[in-house]
């Protein structure tokens, strides 16, 4: 069973200034011989409470939309679910293969050819070399880049780059798909094709978690929603109910 369970998760970000970032200040400030005018260094950490006591459970079949203002903790929550930030307090259990479509051009090598990038990005997404190779044909067909795939990425136009990145990122079938805002690609004709491909990917995932400011998108994609405010989970339930509450508050 695919699921995501969060139990009382707190995420705090320490904010460091030049002084607390410095080993020199840390060492000198602690010693009795340290320059006093510097003051005690290191122990006055400023913490930003990004998430506070989040308890939620996402089950097989859930399409969860995250709503909330900027800075409410949506992206952080997505990163916790992806496994990027490990909670300092509380626990999280994720059952299922997770893939996150946040930055689709991440890890692309501008010096490498299109084909090389298909493999390297595949490895990063967790595929084996064999599995990456198997996806080449699908990506060739989708991107319509033809001979360009033999050229280094630096020769690509911005549109071509996005097309390739999008094709690679959407060539996998994760059980849990995590997205920060909807991703799209290219000109009008291509955008339709991209949407169709993305929808197929979303449909095949057991769980979808998407953070978005676009209520309409969430209404289309999701059956559930969670409202975040200042790092706290305010409400979670049917998408319509939560969206109405969110919209009425703004």
């Amino acid at each position: 069973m695919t699921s995501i369970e969060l139990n009382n998760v707190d995420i705090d970000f320490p904010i460091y200034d030049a002084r607390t970032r410095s080993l020199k200040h840390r060492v000198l400030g602690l010693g009795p011989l340290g320059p006093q005018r510097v003051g005690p260094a290191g122990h006055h950490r400023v913490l930003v409470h990004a998430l506070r006591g989040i308890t939620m459970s996402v089950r097989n079949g859930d399409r969860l939309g995250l709503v909330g203002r900027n800075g409410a903790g949506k992206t952080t929550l997505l990163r916790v679910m992806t496994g990027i930030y490990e909670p300092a307090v509380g626990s999280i259990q994720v059952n299922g293969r997770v893939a996150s479509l946040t930055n689709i051009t991440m890890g692309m090598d501008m010096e490498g050819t299109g084909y090389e990038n298909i493999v390297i990005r595949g490895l990063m997404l967790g595929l084996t070399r064999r599995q990456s190779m198997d996806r080449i044909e699908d990506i060739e067909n989708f991107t319509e880049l033809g001979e360009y795939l033999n050229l280094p990425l630096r020769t690509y136009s911005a549109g071509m780059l996005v097309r390739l990145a999008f094709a690679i990122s959407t060539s996998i079938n994760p059980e849990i798909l995590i997205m920060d805002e909807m991703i799209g690609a290219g000109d009008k004709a291509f955008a339709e094709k991209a949407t169709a491909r993305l929808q197929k990917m979303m449909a095949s995932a057991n769980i979808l978690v998407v953070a978005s400011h676009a209520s309409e998108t969430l209404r289309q994609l999701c059956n559930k929603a969670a409202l975040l405010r200042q790092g706290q989970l305010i409400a979670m339930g049917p998408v319509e109910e939560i969206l109405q509450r969110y919209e009425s508050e703004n």
Partner: protein
Amino acid sequence: MQRAGFSVAAHEARLSEAVLIPARPGNLGLARHDLVEAVRHWRLIVLLAWQDVRQRYRRSMLGPLWLTVSVAVQIGSLGLVYGELFHLDLKVYLPHLAVGLTVWAMFSNTINDGCLCFIAAESFLKQVALPKGIFPARVVLRSLITFAHDIVVLVIVLAIYSPPPVLGVLLSLLGIAIFAFNGLWIGLLFGMASARFRDLPPIVSSVMQVAFFLTPVIWLPSAIQGRLATLLALNPFACFLSIVRDPLFGEAPTMLSWSIVILVTILGWGLALTMFARFRGRVTYWL
């Protein structure tokens, strides 16, 4: 995508362990798991390291040859000047210098870049849950590949001046492997510390510069006698250099060198693993 950075097993095991021991620092199990996962990602490590090296080629017209030519020029000019200055026999001095400089370059690349292994990988670490052990390994492999470019020069110099015994070459390769193994803990430990304390990389690079002069790279150990020589023999860099270099000239490294190398390896890994277990999960917060 059965085997993934956030593969089924990886993610499940990692996160469910976190459930059993919620938010407890110093979890050695998770640290070990991370390293095992990193080993399983060896292909990615190789690709990333090659990608780094290729980026260096690009900045020059001569491509891969540039790395080799520049080291040859460096050895040639230093060899002539210092050989004359110290009144040394080039037959002895040049091979000593060639091996010393290239091996030292590998040491200092590994250590200096090791400090940056996580900082430089910020864009990855904030996007995907890849095992953290990948990044020190990438740095070590990158230095080894760069070193491999210098081997061409070494082969030429050694062939002309003092052909090494076969057993010596093998022992020397073992020495390099032992250093590489140490490079991993250095990257792990210093990479984490540098992510937290950003003034560490420049401090380390200054220390490396001082260490360069305290290590018999451009001078011959035989030139220094007495108490100072005993003291300098304790320098771990000298010991690591000795286990790589001495066998090439048909000499056995001293017991002292071997003991210090083994001690550094054990203590270093012990410390790095303890710190990794404690702070592994915090690295992304520091970036």
